[in-house]
Structures are given as C-alpha cells and as structure tokens.
C-alpha cells in the first residue's frame, strides 16, 4: 500500500516544489512561445541570413540534451562571471530548448498552407505581412495548436530537470523528502501525481481545442 502519511507529513515541502514547478512552467510556456514565434518567422521570412540563423538555432538546440543546456547556464556561466540560481538557469534552459520544437511546429504549420494561398493574396496586391496575417496564419493556427499543446505538456514534464540543478521544483523537494524519510517509491509516486495534476488538464485542453478546430472545417 502507498503510505499517505508521507504526503501529509511533508505537504508543505511538496507544495513549495509544486508552486515552483508551476512558476517555471508558466514562465517557460510564455518564454518558449515568444522565442519560438520569432525563430519560426526567421526561418520562413524571405531573407536568407535570417533563415540561416533560425535553422542553426533549431538544429543546434533541439539536438542537444536539455540537461546540458541547463548545466551550461548553471555551472558554465559562473565560469565567465555570471551566476544564476538553479531556478533561473533551469527556466531559461527550458524556454530555449522548448522554443526550438515550437518554432518547428509553427514553421511546419505555415508551410502546410498551400503555396497558392500566398500567391493569390500577393497577386491581388496585398503586402507580405498583410497576406501572412489575414490568409496564412489563420489557416496555419489550426494545424499548429495541437503540436504546440503537446510541447507545453513536454515542457511541464521536462521542468523536472530543475531538480538536478537545485531549482527548488517538485523533483528537487521530492528528493529532499526521500532523503529525510528514507522512502523512495512512495515519495516519487506523489511527485508523479503532482505532475499529473498539471499535465492532464493540459492534455484534455489540447484534445478539446483539436476537436473544436476540426469542426470549423
């Protein structure tokens, strides 16, 4: 049987971690979305140097482990005189890492809109920006929302790397509870449950949006 006294006796510790995991997730969500949009625009804009920068970002960042990026900010930057807390370093790493996947999802969504749509809009005299805003993006958004939702779910789960760099998140406090109580299995069951409290609503939300978007066409 799972020992619920562990949860009850350490509830404050768990909640402190839960709170920080929520903070890291929300900051990461906003940060990765903003960076992702910027990188996606760089990748598709009709300007070659921007395309290259965008491509390098995506291929570089998404192909190294998140933990290495987190270490870079946590233990790498102090070597050049910049010291960040585990929480800040981890959240930055999380944003930068997830942004590379979000940028790809947005780029794929925009490019899945048939070429003829842009051609029709441009040939009627609309500017590139007008065509993007009124014709391409509204069609791309339907394709893009489900994969972005999935990236957000991944982001919440990936925030557990904060635990490794003293980021004061759920995982970190889970470790602390475990070392106090000398229990492992049950402690982490409760950690997992806290993650589910965040990810299941997100997952349901994504599913709902997916269905709604499918209905309008």
């Amino acid at each position, binding site marked *: 049987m799972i020992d619920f006294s562990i949860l009850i006796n350490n509830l404050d510790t768990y909640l402190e971690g839960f709170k920080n995991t929520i903070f890291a997730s929300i900051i990461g969500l906003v940060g990765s979305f903003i960076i992702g949009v910027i990188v996606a625009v760089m990748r598709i804009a009709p300007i070659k140097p921007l395309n290259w920068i965008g491509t390098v970002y995506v291929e570089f960042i998404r192909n190294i482990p998140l933990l290495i990026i987190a270490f870079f900010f946590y233990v790498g930057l102090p070597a050049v005189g910049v010291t960040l807390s585990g929480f800040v370093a981890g959240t930055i790493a999380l944003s930068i890492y997830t942004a590379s996947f979000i940028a790809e999802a947005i780029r794929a969504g925009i490019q899945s809109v*048939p070429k*003829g*749509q842009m*051609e*029709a*809009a*441009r*040939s*009627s*005299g*609309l*500017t590139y920006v*007008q065509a993007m805003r*009124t*014709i391409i993006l*509204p*069609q791309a958004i339907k394709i893009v929302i489900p994969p972005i939702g999935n990236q957000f779910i991944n982001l919440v789960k990936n925030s557990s790397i904060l635990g490794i760099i003293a980021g004061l998140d759920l995982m970190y406090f889970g470790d602390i509870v475990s070392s106090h109580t000398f229990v492992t299995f049950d402690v982490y069951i409760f950690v997992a449950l806290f993650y589910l409290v965040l990810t299941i609503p997100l997952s349901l939300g994504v599913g709902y949006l997916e269905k709604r978007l499918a209905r309008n*066409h």
Partner: protein
Amino acid sequence: MIRFDSVNKYYGDFHVLQNINLEINKGEVVVVIGPSGSGKSTMLRCINRLETISDGELIVNGVKVNDKKTNINELRRNIGMVFQHFNLYPHKTVLQNITLAPTMALNQSKEEAEKTARYYLEKVGIPDKVNSYPSQLSGGQQQRVAIARGLAMKPEIMLFDEPTSALDPEMIGEVLDVMKALAKEGMTMVVVTHEMGFAKEVADRIIFMDHGQILEQGKPADFYANPKEERARLFLSRVLNH
C-alpha cells in the same frame, strides 16, 4: 500594355524562358498554348512578378516589372490573376474572398467593396452564394468566384493559368462563358488554355510555346487551320485526337 523584350529566365542551369519577345496591346485577348513544361505558366507569372526574370526587360502598364524602384503591390492591384486550382481562401466566405483585397489594398470602405462584390457575383452568375464558404461550392462556381475576386479590383489586365483544367467537363462551359463575356467587353487578357473553342471565338492571337520559346503566333483561325511549325502541328494533332 505588356512588353517582353529579349526576356530570359533560368532555374539554375535550366533555361526555362528563352529570348521571349512579345507585345500585347490594350484590349487584346491572347491565348497561350504548348506542351506541358514548355514555360507557359512561367511566362504568365512573370507578368505580375510571381516569377522574376533573369535578364531582358519586361514592361507592364509602362512600369519595369523587375525594377527595384517598382512598387510591386501597386502594379499587382492592376493585374487580376486566376489560377488552375482557384486558390480561394477556405476560411473566408465568398463575399470576404472578394472584398479582402479591395478593402486592404485599395482602402475601400466595407460597404463599397461589398457592393462591388455583389455586382461581380451577379455578373458571373452566382449572386446567391455570397455567404457560402468555398468548400460548399462546385469547382465551376469556385472558379467563377475567383474571377469575380480578380475583377473586383477593377484591373486593366487579367491573367488566366489553365482556368478550366481542374474542372469536370460539365462545368467548363460556365467558366468559359464568363471569360468570353469579359473578352468581348474589351478586357486585356492573357490566357493559358487548350480550349480551342474559346480561342477561336474570342482570341485575337494564339501563341505557341515549346521548350521555353515562342515558336509561332498568329490569328486563331489561321493557326488552327494551318500551323506553320512542325512541332505546333504535332502538338495540335495530339490535343485534338486525345
């Protein structure tokens, strides 16, 4: 109104347009034919700079199309384009499809743009479809909306790239009728099509292209009855006997 002067275009090493010289006057209806891959679409799309040229000069409405100083959006407002696959905006109604460019690019008021849209929908024979979405229309109806969308900008030139090739046979006529009426009203038209009936009835000139070159041009009656070039003859016999 449209002038190609020794225009060449390459895709890498591939010489897709070879020394094109062509002058099209105001009010003229020109039909372009030729085998697949001969460069018909490419030539047409150069006129509104959907494709850029590699060298030579292309002047439309007195403006050098590929000049850096040319305001391409301004030029395009004066050139309507109709595509093989209609390219209507699927997330917008018929009315929104037609009013979008007039309101955004010409700054017309919504009322004015809608009035114009209804006028042209009447003209292409589907006034009752204003609030439908493209997916609710037949191919022929979609293409007629696309023509109305082009006309609503009141352009001086209309370009058509195989406007009936994607249509079921029973819908070709309704689209061609709209185009014929337009031709008879004096619109300057460049039409890539293999519809001989259309060409014979309203075209002032046929242009035959092959391998990126204009091989032959002439009046439709003469051209179809008696093509001079061997390749044109071969092409016609294949189109007619298929």
